[in-house]
């Protein structure tokens, strides 16, 4: 059964949305949260396991100090208070991908709490309040084989990979976000984007949504315009890209509006987002709230961060993305509009890296937002996913600046790099794309062109210097674009005995 949707504008005319986001970020620590197993992604199934993360009888957890430090840094970057004393707690429920059948998490004593993150949407700053940042462990990964849906229901059998079990996971929970109105989808996306940038700047996670190292659960509820009491919310999972964050909010608003307008009620439940349709479908009902029987984890001692240490971590925080963006915008002399365009295209980090690799900001932006954006669009992929690095772009701009390439040749070089022909220098060499700088070769071409365009040559000799353009065009054509146009112009004028 497909859900009825109400067109977005109509839904917003009748209802106000309230958002909430719970984001899980896998920390990039070398070892797991409670044992020494490696965390590297992509190893053969069940090879990064030990008695602790398999929950063999008798094994005990010991907390990863690096993970605690990373969590505190995240909390500080999100303007949170840091607990002076807090404990891990057990969240009890049975599921085959959770070896202990409880997850070590935090309950009423999170490591970080009461913070905020400012995001820019449509030229205005929206402050997202952070309720808590806590540390927990990831579960194993179940694969359900057979059946139509890939879900556990109807599967023939399931297999579990425990490599992921015990990887440190930070959960960042916002307070409810009212007042976003029709910008709710964009706010949700902007928050997830900004959060990802913060994680990157801290260097605590690779935050790859497609690999699941950052996962967003999006809560949405609607209330009739003018109402003061919030409606029943749903929690959408399986939101695996920034674009999906935005789409899932929009689709859930449209779905809930249709139900409410029809006199129905929203069921409190988990829903799953589907990339292909852009719709959510019903998952587990939360009406009969599961009782997780939380209690303080007796196998671990409380965490008591030394205030001096926390102060030092705070002092050593890197420049945060919003601050950095403001600084770089000034450095680069870029308009607000261009900054927003770069941000929306996810090009900012790439441009920054390209500048860091030595390219002028204007050139770096020009290539990423122009030629490369066009090619990414054609290929149906993202800028970051293009098989080209900021360093390679920087090299291309260097070749153009030195006169070895012009823009037209540079585009061919980029095409070659994207086609897997190697580095920019490899492509230049293999395709023979250098500008012709050899005056002898150029001189021969010019002589041919002058001979073939005697009329134009005469006009120039007669003082009509503007006519030189036609001859330069001829040289460029004859050299198949490889000539240095400026040099060619000078040589033509010299040969014709004209000075400017």
């Amino acid at each position, binding site marked *: 059964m497909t859900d009825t949707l109400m067109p977005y504008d109509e839904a917003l005319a009748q209802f106000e949305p309230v958002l909430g986001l719970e984001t899980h970020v896998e920390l990039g620590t070398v070892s797991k949260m409670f044992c020494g197993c490696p965390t590297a992604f992509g190893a053969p199934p069940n090879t990064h396991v030990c008695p602790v993360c398999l929950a063999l*009888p*008798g094994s*005990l957890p*010991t907390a990863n100090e690096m993970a605690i430090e990373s969590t505190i840094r995240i909390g500080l970057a999100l303007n949170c208070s840091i607990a002076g004393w807090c404990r891990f707690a057990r969240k*009890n429920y*049975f599921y085959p991908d959770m070896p202990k059948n*409880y997850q070590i998490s935090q309950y009423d004593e999170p490591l970080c709490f009461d913070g905020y993150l400012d995001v820019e949407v449509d030229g205005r700053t929206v402050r997202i309040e952070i309720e808590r940042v806590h540390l927990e462990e990831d579960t194993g990964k179940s694969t359900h084989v057979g059946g139509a849906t890939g879900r556990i229901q109807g599967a023939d059998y399931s297999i579990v990979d425990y490599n992921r079990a015990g990887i440190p996971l930070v959960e960042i929970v916002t307070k409810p976000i009212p007042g976003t109105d029709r910008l709710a989808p964009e706010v949700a996306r902007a928050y997830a984007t900004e959060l990802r940038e913060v994680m990157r700047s801290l260097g605590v996670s690779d935050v790859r949504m497609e690999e699941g190292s950052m996962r967003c659960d999006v809560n949405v509820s609607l209330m009739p315009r003018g109402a003061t009491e919030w409606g029943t919310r749903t929690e959408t999972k399986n939101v695996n890209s920034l674009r999906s964050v935005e789409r899932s909010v929009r689709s859930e608003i449209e779905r809930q509006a249709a139900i409410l307008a029809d006199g129905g009620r929203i069921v409190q439940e988990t829903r799953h987002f589907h990339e292909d349709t852009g719709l959510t479908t019903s998952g587990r009902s939360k009406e009969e709230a599961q009782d997780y*029987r*939380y*209690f303080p984890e007796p196998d671990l001692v409380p965490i008591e961060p030394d205030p001096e240490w926390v102060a030092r971590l705070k002092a050593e925080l890197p420049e945060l993305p919003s601050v950095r963006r403001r600084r770089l915008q000034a450095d680069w002399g870029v308009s607000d509009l261009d900054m927003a365009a770069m941000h929306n295209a996810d090009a900012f980090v790439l441009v920054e890296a390209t500048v860091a690799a030595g390219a002028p900001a204007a050139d770096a932006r020009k290539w990423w937002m122009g030629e490369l954006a066009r090619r990414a669009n054609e290929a149906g992929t993202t800028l970051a996913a293009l098989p080209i690095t900021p360093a390679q772009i920087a090299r291309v701009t260097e070749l153009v600046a030195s006169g070895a390439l012009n823009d037209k040749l540079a585009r061919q070089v980029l095409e070659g790099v994207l086609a897997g022909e190697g580095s920019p220098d490899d492509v230049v060499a293999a395709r023979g794309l250098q500008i012709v700088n050899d005056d002898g070769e150029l001189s021969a071409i010019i002589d041919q062109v002058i001979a073939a365009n005697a009329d134009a040559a005469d006009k120039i000799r007669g003082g009509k210097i503007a006519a030189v353009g036609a001859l330069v065009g001829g040289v460029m054509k004859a050299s198949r674009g490889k000539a240095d146009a400026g040099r060619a112009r000078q040589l033509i004028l010299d040969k014709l005995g004209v000075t400017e």
Partner: protein
Amino acid sequence: MSLIHKTAAELGRLIATGETSSVEVAQAHLDRIAAVEPKVHAFLHVDPDGVLAQARAVDERLAAGERLGPLAGVPIAHKDVFTTADMPTTAGSKILEGWRPPYDATVTQRLRAAGLVILGKTNLDEFAMGSSTENSAYGPTRNPWDLTRIPGGSSGGASASVAAYEAPLSTGTDTGGSIRQPAAVTGIVGMKPTYGGSSRYGLIAFASSLDTPGPFARNVLDAALLHEAFSGHDPMDSTSIDAPVPPVVEAARQASVDGLRIGVVKEFGGDGYQPGVLARFQEAVDLLESLGAKVVEVSCPSFTYALPAYYLIAPSECSSNLARFDAMRYGLRVGDDGTRSAEEVMALTRAAGFGPEVKRRIMLGTYALSSGYYDAYYGSAQKVRTLIARDFEAAFHQVDVLISPTTPTTAFPIGERADDPMAMYLADLCTIPSNLAGNAAISVPCGRADEDGLPVGLQIMAPVLGDDRCYRVGAAVEKAFEDRWGGPLLKEAPAL
């Protein structure tokens, strides 16, 4: 005197000097096991060839000049909750029948490194839940003093093996009294170290905040030597205390109470206590005074609430600790016929694999932790726990150690309390407070009850990390009583 009747300290010395070998000592104990196991049933696993191979290896290490500890070459029996990489580990449960751990517990590993030879794995109440060893899935262990009676529990195989001369030493675990009570009812020494003083890594958990590995021996010095051999900080157990092991061996050798202040816990005694137990306890009090100790009565009013608090905290933790036994990765699997869901297989396995007492405690704990009940049950129990710790703290401002009977009664007949969990739980009345507060406590023999001739234990409780005081007072009591009795109490046990 035959090898099996010697103390562990003496065996260690004879092996070190080459007067005997580890192989000879192991063989003597294997012979004893073969002779008496059909009656006692202390062991769940013994592999004679493996034992002799270990003993030969230790003899070779010693011959090669390797310096091992004072117990090198001495045999030991491990309670079957410590993982052993070369032997099955069952926790006395069907759900782990035949499971072979891929790793050694820290206690196991440290004692191997010290050159002790593992005779086998001893019987216990399933997952250490019980006071009689009747809750074992593999049948009860019998008390060497009277084969119709229980050897205590949950470490009943451990106590019986030492009392029956099948092993000179054994390990146990004490969550609510599971070392001290079996030691008391079999006439031997059993020590619960300070919580965190001995590593829980590789100990199959019952109640994490209470479980404490400790030693059994036939005398106080042997217990201290074993205590010292496996104790100390372990980075694999984050609740392990990073402090030096208290000087327990030195204290056991000191064996003096002169000038010590000793407190008698006022709340332990009266109704429910067997007269013979109270009589022997009073004798011990008088003895301590005669040895130069100053004995006073001390009130610990919160101790009255220890038992109910314990029966909320321990089951709560166990309900979570035992969740991992789900048939997915190891152990028993029931009903996996290709048609059932994982959830159904988990439920069928747990229904078939756990015994009634384990199920009772899982249900109790699940209930106590439930939303809406947590504060009233688990929360209140934790508050009681704090009060008990404060009672101890206040008491230890007045006295150096506290004493009480270890258990209210002597060993009861097998089957007598099997259907009455409340009566069974009362066996741990005097031992539970030290588990809740995490302090050290020992049980040493103090004679036999007049009415049944069975052993009675004296409990000596010391502050956190005051383990040495238990040994010091215990050894003084032992020495004075043995002078009076003309040897160890165990000499009076009937021949098997």
